[in-house]
Structure formats: C-alpha cells, structure tokens
C-alpha cells in the first residue's frame, strides 16, 4: 500500500541576524544553510497495517507524514501510496486518503459539524442518502449524537476531535494519516479515540499511520513502530523488539538484609543505585539467570524484583544521548 524508498527532505534556511543591520546585510548577501529534516528513509507498509511513527519533537515524523500525503515534496527518494505518487495530488488519490491533525481542524468554527459534513459529502461526491447512513454509523461508533448539531465552537476538545474524525472518515478512505490526533485531549478522550481507531482498523481494514509523542497511543494501537530520530529511521518493527534493541538489559532490584559495599557487586552487572540495603542493577538479558542465581547465592536477599526499564525512559535516554 505504501512504499517509500530513500526519502529525504532538505530545507534551505536563511540565516539572518536580528535588527536593522542584519536585515540590510541579509538583503545584500543571503546566507543560507541546509537543514536535513528527513534523511534516506525507506519502508513498506502493507494494506490494513497500523503503524506508529514515534520520535521526539522535530525528529521529522510530521514531515515524513506530509510527504506521504503529498503536502510536501521530497528532495530525494520515491513515494508510492495506494499506487499513486502523492505529489501529484490527483483527485483519485485524494479520495483514498485522509489526514487528521491534532489541534487543527477542518470543521467550520461557527457552524454545527453537520454543515461541514454536508460540504464534504458534496466535495467527495457522496450521494446524500449514502452520506446520511455513513454519518449515523460513524456517529454511533464515536458516541456522537446531538453534538453534530451544535456549533463547533461550543464543543469540548474531545467532542471536536471526534467530530473531526467523523468528517475525515466520511468518504471511507483506504489510508488514514493521523498527526498527533490525541494532542491536548484528556485521558478519557484519548482512550476513546484510541478505541475507535482500533475498531475502525479492524472493521474496514484501512491502513493507519499515526504519529504521536504519547507512548500510550503507540503501545495501545501500533503493533509496528517506526522510530524516527533526527531525520533517520532508527527502528522499524514491533515495539518490544525496540525495547530489546534499545535496552538489552533488565533491571534487577534487591533488598538485602544488611548493607554491602559496591565492589562486592562488581561483575554482576551495572550498578545503578546503592542505598544501604537497596540495590538496583542493570543486567544484560542473556546473563540474567546466571546473575540472579549468583546474587541469591552470595548475598542475604530479602526481596528481589526483575523488570524492564520503562520504554519512555529508554527512548528518552536514546534521545538524550543522541544515539542513532
């Protein structure tokens, strides 16, 4: 459904000093530098997949998403979505896709969503009877009722987002591009939106691409994750595999009967914390059983706990370290 090969996007940014002198200098001689937003990204997405783009702010995930929609022209590389070249923005292509952006809306502010829906029905050439049916189906799924007849400005953020989703899905697109769809929503609304997206994907087999910096969105919805960092595609696969790759270690927490010295724990893994009787060690996965056996053998252990470091921390640590 989606094929991306060597996709890159480079922006030429003007470098201008502030103030009047800077403006004049800039006018006489422009200085620019190239900013690489996306570099050599390649991946393939099959129909019906739910894929998440994960990355820090400014990593390049929205740029990549917009290149898939055709809103941004790539500097290099090839993109094919549903057999079309998105750049050309052909009507047939546009009918097959939809874009939803968190905190930005296509619905008219002063009118009820119903009015915007009627416009969309006309634009996409959906007969009124068909549109009515789809609206009522989607409204049921999204738990929207009289909200559709209230002006958009009078709806809460959560209701607005649901109405946005309805408007975006009216023409039954095959590919859904969602850019931070749960941004700014409260916990309940986020959960509802996620539930709806999962259901929708199951029912219709639509391909869903989701960008988010909320881990909860990704873990709840996306069996497959593309991690984008500083414009590069760092990881493409299941989220658990990402955890393995990022953190080939597991965390072992010990509560001892009596305190020990740090050197006593040497060779048993990375010591993260030692506070009296409480010990935290990071142990490589493959050595885990051996190390645990040794710990139990050598030390008076009152309690032992083995966990994964939380994913947010792993990815956050990755970004902090600047590792690619």
């Amino acid at each position, binding site marked *: 459904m989606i094929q991306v090969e060597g996709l890159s996007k480079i922006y030429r940014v003007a470098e201008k000093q502030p103030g009047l002198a800077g403006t004049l200098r800039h006018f006489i001689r422009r200085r620019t530098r190239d900013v690489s937003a996306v570099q050599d990204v390649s991946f393939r997405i099959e129909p019906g997949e739910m894929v998440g783009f994960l990355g820090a702010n400014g990593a390049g995930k929205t740029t990549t998403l917009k290149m898939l929609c055709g809103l*941004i022209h790539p500097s290099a590389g090839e993109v094919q979505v549903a057999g079309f070249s998105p*750049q050309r923005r052909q009507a047939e292509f546009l009918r097959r*896709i939809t874009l939803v*952006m968190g905190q930005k809306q296509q619905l008219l502010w002063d009118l009820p969503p119903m009015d915007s829906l009627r416009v969309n029905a006309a634009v996409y050439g959906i007969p009124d009877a068909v549109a009515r049916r789809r609206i009522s189906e989607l409204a049921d799924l999204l738990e929207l009722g009289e909200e559709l007849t209230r002006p958009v400005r009078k709806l809460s953020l959560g209701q607005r987002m649901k109405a946005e989703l309805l408007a975006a899905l009216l023409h039954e697109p095959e590919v859904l591009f969602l850019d931070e769809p749960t941004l700014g929503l409260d916990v309940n609304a986020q959960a509802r939106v996620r539930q709806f997206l999962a259901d929708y994907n199951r029912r219709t087999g639509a391909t869903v691409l989701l960008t988010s910096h909320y881990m909860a969105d990704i873990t709840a919805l996306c069996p497959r994750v593309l991690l984008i960092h500083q414009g590069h595609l760092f990881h493409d696969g299941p989220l658990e595999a990402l955890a393995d790759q990022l953190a080939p270690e597991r965390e072992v927490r010990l509560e001892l009967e009596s305190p020990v010295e740090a050197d006593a724990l040497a060779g048993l893994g990375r010591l993260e914390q030692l506070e009296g009787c409480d010990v935290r060690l990071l142990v490589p996965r493959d050595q885990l059983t051996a190390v645990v056996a040794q710990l139990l053998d050598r030390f008076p252990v009152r309690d032992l706990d083995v966990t994964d470091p939380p994913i947010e921390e792993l990815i956050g640590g990755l970004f902090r370290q600047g590792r690619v």
Partner: protein
Amino acid sequence: MGRYWRTLRRFWGTAVAVQLEYQANVLIELLAVAMSLSGSLFLLSLFYGPDQTLGGWSWAQALMVQGLYTVFDGMATTWLRPNLGAIVTHVREGTLDFVLLKPIDSQFWLSLRTLSPAGLPEIGLGLGLLAWGSHQAGVVLSLSSLFTVLVMLLAGGLILYSLWFLIAATSIWFVKTWNATEVLRALLASGRYPLNAYPPALRLLFTLVLPVAFLTTVPAQVLLGEAAVPVLLAGLALAVLFFAAARAFWLFALRFYTSASS
C-alpha cells in the same frame, strides 16, 4: 418557582439577544451602506456646480459610474473579502493542508467557500443607482448593449477577483503583509470617478496596470453607446490575462508551499 422564572428569563433573554445580534448586524450594514452612498453622492455633487462636468461626464453619467463602483464594492464585500481574506488565516494556522487534500481544486475552494450576505444590499443599491443614472442620462437599453454590459461586468469582475487573489495568494510567502489587499481596495476607490477625470498619466495606469477603468468607466460607456469595440476587446483580453496570471501564480505558490513548508 422564582428561580425557574429567572432562569426562563435568562434563556429567552439570551435567545433574543442572539437573534438581535444577527439582525443588528444586517441593519448596521444597511445603514452603513446607505450613509456611505449618500456621502459619496454628496461628494460627487461638490464637483458639479452649474454647467460643470467632471472630465466631460455629466452628473447623470457620473452617477452611473458611482453605481457601477458600488456594485463592485458590494461584490468585494460579499465574496472577495470573506474568502480571500481567509487565505492568510489558513496559512497561519496550518489549515491550508486540509484544503489541499480535498479532491477539489484548491483555488475554487478558497475563492468561493463562503459569502457574506451583508454585501448584497450594497450590490442592490449600486444597481439601483446605475439604473437611475442611466435613466437620467437618457440611456436607451437595447439587447445588444445589455449583453455587452453584462459581458463587461463579468470581465470587470474577473479582473477584480484576479487582482485581489494575486495579492491574497502572496500570504503563502508573507503572512505579515496580509493587508496588502487593503492597498488594492484604496486604489480601487479611483473607480468612483470617470476615467477622464484623471490626468493622462493616471488614465494609463488605471487602464492597463490597475484596470479600474474596465470596472466602472467602460461599462458605463457601453450603456451610453460610446464604447469603441477595440476598448471592449482590450477589456476582455485583460480579463483573460489577469485570470490566467492569477491561476498561474496560485500554482506557483502551491509549488513553493509544498517544497518549502514543514
């Protein structure tokens, strides 16, 4: 009981207020248009002492030009300002993307999305003034002159739209110069007066560069039976030219938007 009564009064009070607000708007618009027109006619009358003309145009003839100007100003208020004024908002808020992803021409969407009915009375008054002036000037309507006038009005409308759109489309580059269309509007006020009221240098400007002449003077000339065919053809040519330029510029602007924005 008292509480319910008070609540009910609130309900109805706000409902009436909302209704009034909407109606008040229309009333205020109507009043403003009527006042503005009276003022303009008063101003025009200052040019007409006994036996005086403005650029060779009689009072009744100048009224026709004012009427035509008012029609075009009304069209700007009804369609151009609400639609083209929103382009910069789309660019600023990132909602232009939604427009571009609809399977419908983006220029069409942006130009005709909405309308402001408050401008309709102005169009009506302008047509009325045109009719009155024509009658006073002794215009005899023939089918061919009516047809030609309509064609020239269409051409004028296209020129006005294209000019306004060209300027509004620059907001894709410069969000900070969104009020450039106000400069256009100020310059368009020159269309209130017949072309010959201006010195020769400005006459050229108002015919070729900022073709206000084709909006107001030429259609009036058509009705008065004074329009020469070459001028009409020039007007049509300019309309086509400006419209094509607006279209080409929009496609160029989109190319820039899709390659340089993030």
